[in-house]
């Protein structure tokens, strides 16, 4: 598009008191041939906006630089339509409110920001949404036909979309169908599971296609264009889907590992799952002799909350045992149930069910098991009764039920190994290394994705493919694939249903966004996407390795095969590529490079150092804004450059900037490590890794490594921002001016 640039400077909110606008206009006209440069005392007011609109209509302005407040505000006021390029220059928070005085340095700062904006728009094109060649599918593939999977399919259908349900067993229903009763809101009593009705609703629903005795053999493609190969009852089928819900559920923790609790040793020691199945089948009896049960003891946290077994809490076992105690009492009102627990965890309204279980006369004992044994054909349990403060023994037990926890079905029995990288220190004798849970190669076969980064969803610590984010529980590392129910996190039936409904929502949303070329969370609505100039590709594979979302496959030769519908637009690939072949229409290595070149670098004797601060636009940028709002001051020698994610920074920027005489570069990114906050998973970590390798470049240029620094800045660290800058400026002062100035 032919760019007709207009620059509009707001002099309100104190900007006019700090800057002279005329020289800025002159500079823009001289250096960037911008003919329209106007200022207004209240640009966001109706009159100010009109001024711009008139130029759009009258002068054909289509590329608008607004030098006013932060782009985080007045986003609606300065929206002039999708067909305009809008660049916001933050004169208020980053200049007027955060500079100590109106002087030459402040003026130069403002001028640099205008120059950088001009350079930026010079490299900006209006993005056009991606459109796949194939027709988009709006159907949803649901893997797993238990309560979560059936719910996902039904809710999808209710919203008017088609679902394809794949269940490994011959019959739908999963654990729900094996249950006798359920406990759920309002938690006053046990209730029917509703499994049969649900199975029927699924089977009868014309919008749901069910495959039983089936497995997903292979999934290729991406959101909107998934191709799914299903093997059902020995036959193969191929389906197309737009998004996927993985609801493959859980398996009970292997009670054979709980020999110390008598499992496998005594027939009358059973798991809660076995208890449920027995109850559902009819009568609860002693497995040893089929006799009636009168005294039952439930051992809570059998394996759960135990570092030797499952360190986590399985969430639902307290309620399950209380429910099963109800079965026992219903069968024989004189029966006695003992519940041996660590903590009773009936959160929310489910506390009511705990009350009911108490009312029923079940005996709750807080403590730990010492021994499970047999005497005279009956079981006994010795325990440490915490509240009695004594060792106790409960005899004449007919049944001991182990409340075993939930293990994600896709947890591998043994941690898989892959070939270790050559520089790995953890490799075994065969050069192999254990796969980390957050790798797509960790979990066992459920989706069989034909993805370069592994066939399954990456998982968290214990093998649950859950979100790492508190605010975004449906955040996924594989675009368009959402996990739901107990595969995600141990949860009770009611919550699994809610969770599956939410997953269906996200799947539908992904389909709708993809079909119009929009990104999903966190850059929801973004229509730009990375384009690859393949002719210059060196098959280094960095982009395919580093993409946090597994969006790029590669061919046998190592050429990247991008799947734009899987892409989340973070730009990590762009930062990874040493050949600069990946760029967005409105975000590229060249664009930022030009911005850096636009910064004026005064001569050494002027003693005006120049520092570039790259800031993550989600966290560090608002923190800087906040510091401005609080009227905190910082050096006039720094220039902020917002980036989509620090994962998108290219090392060439460092080299280029230093070569031009920029004295230092500071990178403000999100916290990384186990509790990472980067919304693109690894961006900030990758940036840090890349920067650690920058010393070579610095050495080559004979520059001090102190000139480049990475620092973690959270969104609430606004109070720290000025100090971080001052400290860095002191460092720069101590290492002295960049010797390349003026070259």
């Amino acid at each position: 598009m032919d760019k007709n640039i207009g620059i509009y400077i707001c002099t309100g909110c104190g900007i006019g008191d700090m800057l002279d606008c005329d020289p800025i206009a002159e500079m823009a006209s001289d250096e960037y041939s911008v003919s329209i440069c106007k200022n207004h005392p209240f640009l966001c007011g109706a009159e100010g906006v009109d001024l711009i609109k008139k130029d759009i209509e009258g002068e054909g302005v289509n590329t608008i630089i607004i030098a006013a407040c932060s782009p985080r505000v007045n986003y609606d006021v300065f929206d002039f339509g999708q067909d305009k390029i809008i660049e916001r220059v933050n004169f208020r928070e980053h200049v007027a409110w955060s500079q100590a005085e109106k002087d030459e340095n402040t003026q130069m700062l403002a001028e640099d920001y205008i120059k950088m904006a001009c350079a930026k728009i010079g490299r900006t094109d209006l993005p056009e949404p991606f459109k796949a060649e194939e027709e988009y599918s709006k159907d949803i593939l649901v893997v797993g036909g238990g309560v979560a999977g059936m719910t996902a399919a039904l809710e999808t259908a209710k919203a008017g979309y088609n679902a394809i349900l794949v269940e490994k067993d011959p019959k739908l229903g999963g654990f729900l169908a094996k249950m006798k009763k359920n406990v759920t809101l309002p938690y006053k009593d046990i209730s029917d599971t509703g499994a049969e009705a649900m199975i029927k609703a699924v089977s009868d629903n014309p919008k749901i296609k069910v495959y039983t005795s089936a497995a997903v053999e292979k999934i290729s493609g991406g959101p909107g264009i998934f191709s799914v190969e299903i093997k059902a009852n020995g036959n193969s089928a191929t389906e197309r889907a737009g998004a996927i819900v993985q609801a493959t559920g859980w398996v009970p923790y292997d009670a054979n590992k709980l020999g110390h609790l008598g499992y496998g040793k005594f027939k009358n020691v059973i798991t809660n799952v076995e208890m449920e199945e027995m109850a559902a089948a009819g009568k609860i009896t002693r497995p040893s002799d089929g006799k009636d049960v009168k005294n039952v003891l439930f051992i809570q946290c059998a394996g759960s909350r135990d570092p030797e077994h499952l360190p986590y809490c399985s969430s639902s076992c307290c309620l399950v045992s209380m429910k099963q105690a109800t079965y026992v009492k219903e069968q024989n009102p004189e029966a006695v149930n003992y519940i041996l627990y660590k903590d009773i965890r009936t959160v929310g309204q489910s506390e009511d069910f705990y009350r009911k279980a108490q009312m029923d006369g079940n005996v709750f004992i807080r403590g730990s098991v010492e021994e499970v044994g047999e005497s005279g054909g009956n079981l006994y349990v010795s325990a440490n009764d915490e509240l009695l403060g004594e060792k106790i023994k409960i005899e004449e037990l007919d049944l001991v039920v182990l409340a075993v926890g939930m293990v994600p079905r896709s947890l591998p029995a043994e941690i898989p190994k892959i070939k270790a990288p050559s520089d790995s220190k953890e490799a075994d004798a065969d050069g192999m290394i254990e796969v980390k849970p957050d790798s797509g190669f960790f979990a066992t076969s459920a989706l069989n994705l034909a993805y370069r980064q592994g066939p399954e969803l990456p998982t968290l610590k214990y093998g649950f493919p859950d979100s790492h984010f508190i605010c975004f529980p449906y955040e996924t590392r594989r675009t368009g694939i959402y996990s739901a129910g107990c595969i995600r996190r141990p949860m009770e039936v009611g919550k699994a249903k809610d969770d599956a409904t939410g997953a269906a929502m996200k799947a539908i949303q992904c389909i709708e966004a993809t079909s119009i070329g929009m990104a999903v969370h966190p850059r929801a609505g973004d229509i730009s996407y990375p384009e690859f100039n393949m002719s210059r590709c060196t098959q280094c594979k960095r982009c395919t390795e580093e993409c946090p979302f597994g969006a790029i496959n590669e061919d046998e030769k190592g050429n990247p095969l991008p799947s734009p519908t899987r892409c989340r637009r973070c730009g990590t690939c762009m930062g990874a590529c040493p050949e600069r072949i990946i760029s967005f229409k409105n975000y590229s290595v060249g664009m930022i490079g030009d911005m850096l070149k636009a910064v004026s670098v005064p001569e050494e004797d002027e003693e005006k150092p120049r520092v570039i601060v790259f800031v993550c636009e989600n966290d560090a940028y608002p923190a800087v804004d906040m510091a401005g709002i609080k009227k905190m001051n910082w050096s006039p020698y720094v220039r902020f450059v917002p980036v989509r994610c620090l994962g998108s920074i290219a090392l060439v920027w460092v080299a280029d900037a230093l070569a031009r005489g920029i004295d230092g570069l500071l990178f403000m990114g999100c916290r990384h490590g186990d509790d990472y906050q980067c919304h693109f998973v690894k961006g900030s970590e990758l940036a840090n890794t890349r920067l650690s390798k920058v010393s070579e470049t610095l050495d080559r240029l004979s520059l001090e490594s102190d000139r480049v620094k990475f620092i973690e800045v959270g969104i609430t660290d606004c109070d720290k921002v000025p100090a971080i800058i001052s400290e860095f400026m002191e460092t720069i002062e101590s290492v002295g001016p960049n010797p390349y100035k003026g070259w």
Partner: protein
Amino acid sequence: MADVQTTNQSILVVGGGISGITTALEAAEAGYDVVLLEKNPYLGGRVTQLHQYFPKLCPPSCGLEINFKRLKANPRIRFFTMAEVAGISGKEGDYDVKVKISPRYVNEKCTGCGKCAEACTAEVDNPFNYGMDKIKAAYLPHGFAFPMRYVLDPSIVGTDDGKKCKDACQYDAIDLDMKETSFDLKAGAIVWATGWNPYDAAKVEYYGFGENKNVITNVMMERMASMNGPTGGKIVRPSDGKEIKNIAFIQCAGSRDENHLAYCSGICCVASLKQTRYIREQYPDCEVTVFFIDIRALDRLEDFYTMVKEDQKVKFIKSKIATITEDGATGNLVLEGENTNTGEQIKATFDMVVLATGMAPNSIKSVCSADVSCDEYGFIANDPAKAGIYGAGCARRPTDVASSVQDATSSALRAIQSIARR
């Protein structure tokens, strides 16, 4: 306000906290029109007042920033602050809703420049900090407030201060004649995401909240730990600003108690565990004691509990404390109760006590004449037989942020289904 064009294809989301925002965004990003109402002058709700989330100890504003960005980018959502529902009638697919807007006394011309606050001399209790400090009567509710627009406290309207504010504004943004207004809208489905209020700690009278100065609540602790809180993030004793050497947390201060909230509020255990981290980070020598009935750290949150337990300075005692007595001279607090593990009577002195007060829902019943069921506690029951109005987040059950967002996402689909059915 008259330009609110809605149809029975619109989704109304009541409550602009994390749940409401999520519902609105999820529905809008799938292509549906949403109206979002928030009674505060800003969006974000209760989570904006939290210092950090458990278990990651990350700031809520990080996720809110993304959500606000999504909201700014989405023309399908219209939101109103200082807005409350005054009445709901109708049925699924066809609701009539009356919305009441309280006067902000600041119009859309506000640039957030802050000149009014500079001019204003009157101060009011800062609601954002639960009254722990004062704020100018012309104020930005908090640093991250979205929308970034000032508010005038009604107490200065008609006073000199009100006039000073008006005169100080260069943008004609102060409108002292603003009145409460109302408008009607239509909706095909309603998601009630009005969240919760902290249970009034003063009602648990034997803890002397309000009289014993160094007894605070868990929500107040969040403000204290927060950089934009009343103490700039430094946790100190309210009575004398002194540093803390020995602090107690009392769990279930109102929750799991038939005299107060019979249900478990679900989050307070892990919230207190989290707050022990705040304390221990600021005070390497501070002793912390957590008095509890059961520690309820579900699923992977157990890891967080395990981590806190490893801290030798944090003690856990199974006891519901019976009495707090203030020592008038020192402001120290004497706690009495039974250590139920040992049977010993506890009499221990602390310099500060945090009450883990629970969540009381903001119920829909008072404003809704349409058919909707609530449980005995006021939480929306989401009765499948009464589709059309759905509770989301803590309006439905007391729960943490991740579960609220999960629930809010499912509510978005339920609302969409209500529209799809019509």
